[in-house]
């Protein structure tokens, strides 16, 4: 496909039709100001704002990536990192098929907090959730406080995907979503949106949302 030059293969509006579409619910977790929204906006819109205002509540975005024959549509819930929103997180991660736990490589506390999130996910989320750990702000490696090896080891011990990303320079942003897409099971059901079209829908459009059955 001509418009999938970048590794991520983000679907352009005029993208060709795919054989198979899978939908997955993905949730981003992590302390405030680690760059969750930046990561998502870079992935979805290709934009980056140096001064992103902090997210209020959770924001919903979608983006589709292509792996071979399959189009994987991510329904991304970008949660608020502020402490007062933490108790809302179960709403998003219970029932999510994938989660990205983000920390800031300049901030050891955010890494500790990320570990708490991972623990919570392992305890409370669905048992086969795919968890990815993203060490964001990799462009600022000069003032790094969390070692790559340390995080890598932690990720390996807990069976997490792990990448150091940078929303600013777009390093590993598409890659981490793609890695998640690859790891998600694609043969079975297509996530929670296994919706059955109402028969009485007057327009009866059935184009876009086709489930794999």
């Amino acid at each position, binding site marked *: 496909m001509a418009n999938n*030059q970048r590794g991520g293969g983000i679907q352009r509006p005029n993208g060709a039709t795919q054989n198979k579409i899978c939908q997955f619910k993905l949730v981003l977790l992590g302390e405030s100001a680690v760059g969750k929204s930046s990561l998502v906006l870079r992935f979805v*819109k290709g934009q980056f704002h140096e001064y992103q205002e902090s997210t209020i509540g959770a924001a*919903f975005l979608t983006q589709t990536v292509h792996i071979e024959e399959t189009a994987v549509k991510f329904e991304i819930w970008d949660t608020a990192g502020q402490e007062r929103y933490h108790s*809302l997180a179960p709403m*998003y991660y219970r029932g999510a098929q994938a989660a990205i736990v983000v920390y800031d490589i300049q901030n050891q506390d955010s890494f500790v907090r990320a570990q708490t999130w991972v623990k919570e996910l392992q305890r*409370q989320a669905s048992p086969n959730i795919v968890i990815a750990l993203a060490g964001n702000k990799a462009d600022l490696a000069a003032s790094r406080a969390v070692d790559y090896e340390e995080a890598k080891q932690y990720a390996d011990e807990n069976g997490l995907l792990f990448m150091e990303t940078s929303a600013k320079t*777009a390093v590993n942003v598409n890659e981490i979503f793609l890695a998640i897409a690859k790891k998600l099971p694609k043969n079975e059901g297509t996530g929670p949106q*296994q919706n059955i079209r*109402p028969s009485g829908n007057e327009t009866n459009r059935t184009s876009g949302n086709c489930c794999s059955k």
Partner: protein
Amino acid sequence: MDSLKAPSLTSLISGTDRGSSDSLLGSLNLDLDEIDDDLSILPVAELPSLDAIMNEIDSDLDIDSINSSNILADNKRTSYTPTFNDEKHQSGSILRHVIFQGVTAQISSASERIEAGYASAVCVSRMIAIGTSHGFILSFDGGQTLKWCCSEGQKKHQGAVSALSFNVDDTRLLAGFSRGAILMINTQTGDVLRTLLDAISPNAGVLAIKWTSRPTLALSLDTGGCVWSLSFTRRMGVRGCDSRCLFSGARGEVCTFEPLIVNDESHPFQNNYTLVALATLSKFFILMIRPRLKVIKYHMLSGPADSLPLLSWQMVLIQSADSSRSVDPVLATARGSSLYFHQLTYHNGRINVTFLRQITLGYNIVSLHWLGSKNIACIERDTETLHLIDVRTNRELESTDLSSLGIIYSSAQFKGIATGGNVSKALALAGTFACYSTIVSNDYNSTLYILGKKSLHGISVRSWSDRLSYLTAKKQWAEAFDLAIDGYESTVNKPRRHIITKERILQLFDDYLNGTNRCPELYLESAIKCLIVIDRHDLLWQELWDRLYSQEVYLNILTQHILNDKLTLISPTVSQALLDYWSKSSIEKLEALILKLEWPCLDLHQALSLVKNFQLYKALMHLNTKALNDYAMSLVELIPLINENNEFGDRTLGNNILVYISSCLAGRGYPTGEIPENMLSNVKHEIMRILTAQHSKDGTDNELPYPYLRELLKFDTRETLNVLSLAFMEREFSTELGFSQRQRIINILLDIIKADDKDDNQKFGILCNFMSQQITTQHLPDSATYLTQIINYITREDALQITSRQHIEKEQTFMNLLETNTLTSRFTFEEMLEIANATKCYSVARYILEKLKKYEKIVETFVLSKNDHELFRYIMEYKNCDDRKIFQQILQHFQSLLEMNCDKISKFIIEFYPICIPQFLQNTIDVPKLNYVFLQELINNGTVALDSNEYDKYLNLLSDYNPENVLEFLQNQNHLYDIDYALNLCEQRNLTSSMIYLYEKKCDYKTAFTLSMECLKESPESTAEAQALKVCSMCVRISNNLNDADRETYWFELIKAVLSRNYLSSIVKQVLHLSSSYVDLTKLVQLIMQNDVQGSAKSFGDIKHILIGMLTNFEYESLLLKTTQNILGRDLHTKLVKEKQQAEAGIYCKFLKCSICKRKLSDSVTNASQNDNNQIKIFSICGHSIHNSCYEKSQDECTNEIESEEPCDKDLNKLQCSECGIIINEIDSIYLSKTNWSLISKNDMNIDLMLKAPTRLGLNNKLLS
């Protein structure tokens, strides 16, 4: 009592009272395992326990003083190790050490009363036999009763008993003596059946004797290192013995051997084969004796010289890689600190030996014995410590100190003292620590028997159950429970043993309850953990709970287990206490506990009042749903409270309610689990009913409609809508009913959130976004009402400042609608494009442009949205598509692009449109700043060739925007600009340093110098020094291009300037030094003096150092000159000496005949003229010589042959020897006149030297040219 003992012993020796049980000793009917029980032969009033005995050995304490409390005190000293699993060997409960008191007493008694000497050998099977150093053999039955005593060896003066061996069925005992005799004794009666005095090498003692697997075959080892096979015969009732040497010690003395005894009838090795392992000081063998003698395997076994090889067989269950199992004999061999394991397998009639593994220990060992098939016991040499090693894991399980036992070593036997010491030194040395016959193991009960001087000790490995009992007895409850858990978990896969284990643990628990009556809190943690592991929770609430004095510890431990999900159901009594306890100390724990525990075990009244009291909403919702099955009540009660709490910044309740609603609508339990299937639809319906309720339960009349939803939206619109959108993904909302429900909710939402309300503006945006999502996913009909609302929202050109997040969402809303073609019915694309541009939704605009194929506007949208990342991606993707008009668009928006990312766009242009660069430059001409930036990128890139006036333009811009970089540019890009133009420019901008540089470059040194001098004069104190040095270095540069007068003028002017400033005195010397190479020194001094005079009061001292410097310089240089002359003179002299030596060196001539005419050199060449040709030429390298005339002749011939016109390419200075063809320089050949040489006679030379050297031509030095 004592009087009774003696007769019984003597009676035994005299043989009259064999096996009598009437003696006191005989009455000791002890089981081996119960040595420390009631009966003891020691005449003590109190019966000591095993520990008491151990203590006695260790510390020589008075036995009476050892009581149980003392032991307990001891135990407390041993630190409790919670990480029991990792350090198992610390518990000290594995090895069991017993002293065979009966045997020990008899040995002492025998030694005292019949002078039997100390014990020297032991053998244990079902019976025990002890040999002594004076040749007595004492035999005991399993109950340690002395059966008989044999003094035959002593009578025959055979010295000490050195080896003993029972046969398989314990009917015969073989005894070897240190003087070589071997006795066979009937074990029942003590009768000597055979006496073999000559079965082994004469004048050698017996080192070892063992029965083999064959009942009539035994092996014996003598001090000569030979192994003898003894086959016992009984021909016509006459007992005999054939002894045969199996292995001669001449080729390496055997130190030990170990026959393989297999007790398993079905095993192939049992019947058909007789195998034995032998070990010498250098290797070990596995030898087959029957059916035929054959070495199956031998292997090197090296180690320290003073260590003996050790062997031990054991039948081991081996699980191979292909998961087949077999019981095979495994031979453990060791020497020094290395331990090897070999497996013996039998396959299709072949016996194979497989190497299993090697273990290297940190110490040298003297004894190696299997204790069971999993463990091996090694005794360390230096400290006499027994190490128990787990063979599978190589881990040391436990070690115990045996040094107090007084282990007996058979060094006397190995040194052959009894036979006159005729043993090899190697064997004698290695045998220092031999204990083959004093430390023996017993296959029947896996016990290691150790013979002390007058005592017999047994060491065995306790079974799991025994260890528990042991720990119980020592009241080490923590260890006991940890061990119990360990054992329980290891039997998980074996159901029958699992049950037995569990029963044993329950017994342990009973013991614990009884044992800790007085201090019930002790070791509570281990006990509770153990009960939880074995799944006997019921016991937790019974006696354990009842007897507690204080419940705190118990409750804390229990809480820990509950929070770790180990325990979910507890007794209501306990749960009551638990909640009560935590309600007083930690509310968080209380809530966590309520959430974790199953509700039926809670006192609901207590729990509910607690959660209401403490406002534990999570727990409250949990209890409401689980216990009361009421999913609506929580909402009805709690939603009205949301905003009260929120006002204090406490979102907890609101968040929890949102999560609760979301969970319920998704069919999940709160906070964990699932809602039961049969209630699912009811629950969802109920929740929706509450949300869409027109009025609250007890609302007033003026209450606004939909109070609950309103409250939620007021609390957090975005999250509430998120909850709904998550819920709408559920299947229930995709039915027809579900669709109408959706519509209803959205209608309600629209009712609550008014579009035109200022406060709700943001909320309305969120709602529109939500609706558009619903419409695009076709979950909401795109009916006019909704669309109008949304379009209103989209098209509203925001008067209010909206955040970027809101804008993104708005854009997304717009985009969603576009992509699903919802808007096409209402607007044309052009209209939409207008809207998009007006509302700054540029990605939407881009999308429409793509659709309309109006590519020429696309770059503009990127530029307007300032999204350079995507822009460049787009440009790169379509740079080759002509219809996209990329180039034109870039040109058009070039200025904006430069502003956005000048680096990237410049690179792009340089790479893809290099020829159009002038066009781009033209484009920026009216914005100097951008022009400058672009030019800078181009010039820095370095690969682009620009018109030279572009450089001038750049210089111009640079001097405007960045004057301090002008000089750098001028220096680095010196060929690219027009000097005059630059000069002019610099003059205009007054960039002096650049001007100086340019003047110097133009070779206008005068102006450059004048300018820089001006500069120096003007420069303030702080920069003067640097400026002066700059001028100085310029002077150095230009000095070579100046005439003398100018040069002097410049320098002097500079020096004057420098001297005139006091603060520059630091660099005066440097300047003078540099100038001294270019100006006349006298004038320089003069100048300095003058200057000094002018400067009035300045003393001579100021320039003193200059003059001194000059003088020092002069001195130094004259010295330098002198030294150089010396060196040159010496060189010349050396050269001369060398030349002279060379000239005086003798030349030696190998042949006395001319190599051309073959006549004697002394003969004159007849046909040649007599004058100058009468010379001889000698080649100094090869030693050949010719007449000069002959040579010239040959040369002439040679030249004649070559065509005469051609110039002779032979170098005239080169000569070629006609004999060997070597070419030499003419200088290296010597001419001498024939008349002047004389032949030194051969005889004259040989008289002195007596050498057969070729004849030499002695040449007179003076005659040489």
